[in-house]
């Protein structure tokens, strides 16, 4: 497959759609609601880079820099970034993106409701799926509230350029990774206007307990939580009994909301009455946790999920969209020591416990 653009629902190969794109595609195919969107594939990136750096000289230059020479890294990376953002896209790639973007705004059979220039999120989707990707994830950009075909094309290029931000380059130089084989896909999805959003772990991030789901959330966009602008509400739900066993309402003093028509994200003070009000009802907490469990079961391993709760009418389960799901890495990396092994007789467990000094 060499398409420059794929519908999100058919994105299935991380080498093609990047980790995020493939994972969102897999979620969609598993029946989980994700915002509609498309992926600008690795082929789109490679076609664009063929115009930016036809012989690979610029990338070879970056690759030649010593990991310790931060000034040289900054110089080489900045050069490459400005070339990426300044070079016009090959028309075949631009057309594919423009056409996919145009289709995003069209509501089937409802011409009156269709939007010519819908607001979208433009998100980097790296192809590196090894364990380093985890620490990498935060280094690549996501742009919220982008509108208009020109804006989308511009932000796709910015995502690609973020592959060459100083931190990422330094990281790759330290590990002596090749630059030429590097590629990045970009996910473009309709913006959601969530009442609340946040993250969810299908095990306790604090204790690693696999019997609970931990949810953190705040009003509006989840970026407030990621950016550390709020102390989120946090909830612990037992997977087995469904009981909400932990409940802490945070001070959510700020709210992130996106400004329509490409206005990006606005940060404002949360209305006083909402600051210390929980952003989720018990039903919503349970619905989130059950979606989290479904995703965990689908992948067969605990997940780290970004979610949003739409401000619509209807059952909580129908208002939840997932923005990302990836394997939990912190506890997964720790060697689990068995808590106990069977003994010859059941009673020996008691003898063992009471026989040992505290």
């Amino acid at each position, binding site marked *: 497959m060499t398409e420059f653009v794929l519908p999100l629902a058919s994105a299935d190969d991380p080498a093609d759609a990047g980790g995020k794109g493939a994972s969102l595609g897999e979620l969609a195919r598993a029946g989980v609601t994700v915002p509609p969107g498309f992926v600008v594939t690795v082929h789109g990136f490679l076609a664009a880079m063929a115009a930016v750096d036809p012989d690979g000289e610029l990338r070879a230059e970056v690759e030649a820099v010593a990991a310790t020479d931060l000034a040289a890294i900054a110089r080489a990376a900045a050069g490459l970034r400005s070339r990426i953002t300044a070079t016009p896209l090959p028309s075949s790639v631009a057309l594919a993106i423009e056409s996919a973007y145009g289709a995003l705004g069209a509501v089937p059979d409802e011409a009156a409701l269709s939007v010519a220039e819908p607001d979208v999120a433009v998100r980097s989707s790296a192809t590196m799926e090894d364990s380093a990707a985890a620490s990498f994830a935060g280094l690549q950009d996501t742009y919220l509230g982008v509108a208009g075909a020109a804006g989308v094309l511009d932000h796709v290029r910015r995502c690609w350029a973020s592959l060459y931000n100083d931190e990422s380059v330094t990281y790759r130089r330290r590990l002596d990774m090749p630059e030429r084989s590097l590629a990045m896909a970009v996910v473009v999805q309709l913006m959601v206007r969530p009442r609340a959003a946040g993250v969810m772990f299908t095990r306790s991030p604090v204790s690693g307990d696999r019997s609970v789901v931990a949810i953190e959330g705040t009003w509006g966009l989840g970026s407030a939580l990621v950016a550390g602008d709020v102390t989120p509400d946090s909830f*612990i739900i037992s997977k087995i009994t469904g009981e909400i066993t932990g409940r802490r309402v945070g001070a959510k003093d700020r709210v992130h909301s996106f400004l329509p028509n490409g206005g990006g994200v606005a940060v404002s003070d949360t209305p006083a009455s909402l600051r210390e009000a929980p952003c989720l009802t018990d039903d919503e907490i349970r619905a989130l946790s059950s979606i989290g469990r479904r995703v965990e079961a689908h992948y067969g391993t605990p997940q780290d999920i970004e979610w949003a709760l739409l401000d619509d009418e209807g059952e909580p389960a129908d208002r939840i969209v997932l923005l990302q799901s990836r394997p939990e890495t912190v506890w997964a990396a720790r060697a689990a020591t068995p808590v106990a092994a069977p003994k010859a007789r059941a009673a020996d467990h008691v003898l063992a416990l009471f026989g040992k*000094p505290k």
Partner: protein
Amino acid sequence: MEHDGFPLPSQITDVPGAENWRSMYQYFTRFQPDDDKRFWFYNSMHFPEPIPAFDSVTSEIPYQAIGANTARLFVFPTTLGIEHRIVNGRVYITANPVLDPAEIGRRAEVFGPRAGYYYENWNSLYEGWKERVRGLIAEIEAIEVPQLSEWEDASVVFESKGVAQNHYLQENFAKCLALYSKMWHHHTEMLMLGYGAYVVFFEFCNKAFPEISDQTVGRMVAGIDVIMYRPDDELRSLAKLAVDLGVDDLFTEGCAADDVLAGLEARGEAGGRWLDEFAKARDPWFHVSTGDGFYHHHLSWNDDLTVPFTALPGYIAAVRAGSLKARPTAQLVEERERIANGYRDLLTSDDEKAAFDQMLGLCRLVFPFVEDHKFYCEHWFTTRFFQKVRAFGALLAREGMIAEADDIFHLHHTEVDQALSDLALAWAAGTPPLGGAHFPPIIAERKRMLKVLRDWSPPPALGPVPEGLNDPAVRMLWGVTADRIQSWLHPDTEEMHGVAASAGIVEGVARVLQDVNEIGEIREGEILVCPVTAPSWAPVFGKIKAAVSDIGGAMSHAAIVAREYGLPAVVGTGDATKRIRTGDRIRVDGDRGTVRVL
């Protein structure tokens, strides 16, 4: 408080107006100077009110039985016995830990085979245990209180028995105490091992699932077919029968048992059939105590039919409305298995799963004993014991030594022995006993002091914070953990903290009950706030919206029953009955274990 910790025992001063409280209790129950070095906690679970002089037997005897079991009989490696002290009428206890590793090792050698024998033969030993305890109950019932007839019965002469009835005053009274002591040795015979099994499983679950609540572990363990539900089940059946037979009109809100029973007598065959079933239910199920068997005024339903006849009209109304549901036992079993399997499936290795099965299996093996022993011991035997002592009281009252039968409970058992000696002498001499002048002023003063002592707020604990809490009962029964001690030390002025015993959050109007005899006061949808609950409180759980208690852990009665009824409950709050007043709107958070007055 000048030091970091609780007040020292030596810093507790006498409650003004009750300075003479020591006269009620034996010398060996008093705090000693060295006791300042140890951690003590107020056993408000068993002794929520100041103890009358005679009732101190319910600490004196149980603690010699419990300590014998852990320290000397099974030789628990890390714990000796529980010591108790009385101050201002309240019982404080401490568990003596074994801390020296060499000594623990030496004890473990003995403990292993002894405990192993009981666990391995648990069910057959429990069957034998029931036989022995039923034997003790029969023996206490059979004790005769000599009625001191004017002349000795002729049989004593013609069958040359040789011993006159005044001799049996002291012998038979001593026999009551001896049987009470034997009952307590049976009570603890298997109990500490039962708690040991709980502690092992709870610790495993806490390690494998650090966020699991004690209540959830309790739900995996709890048996469905336990005696504790039986008296209440019998009441439900009797309510249904009353409706079926068309005699339900006799049971009205506030009805007196005697009136209803007389009314049933007059209802011919239908009334007769109900009375027959009632008689069957009474023996043994109405031997359930209205308290938990640590005070003489905790009568059984059989001794005082107020509690069952308070509950019956409500159950009958529910039968008529078609809303009286039997306990959904099949559903409860299914739910219990679903939870246990859910956690089991999350364990990653087969080894862990096998260990989980062993530990859970052991808990379920011991659970019926741990729950049901209370019915045989604290309820059935103990209410018979107090009734027998009351019969001695009736004799002393008839002989003019005390004003009424229940006054006997204001004398220590050694004083009762003195009174009986006095009476034996007087009967033999043909003169009135001298106790008639001696005891009444003492009793009057003690009654007055108990009233004064009732208003004292005992600190939840005394002495330095302990290093370790090794006693299985201290954690599982009393719910005393490092966290609990911290919340005692730093009380939250707005929120009460306890054990999250049963999940859910509700708000509602509080009804503070000090005693099960007050359960008639509770209204549909109120939140019960009480010192501690026992099985005879069961009828109340169908009416209330949530339960809060001063004392109790995850496996205490209130916790287990609340989980089964699906009511939020917080137990072990320490002082909810003092901080909440009837009529207060409160919020009970059974998920977090907190209670707040709104």
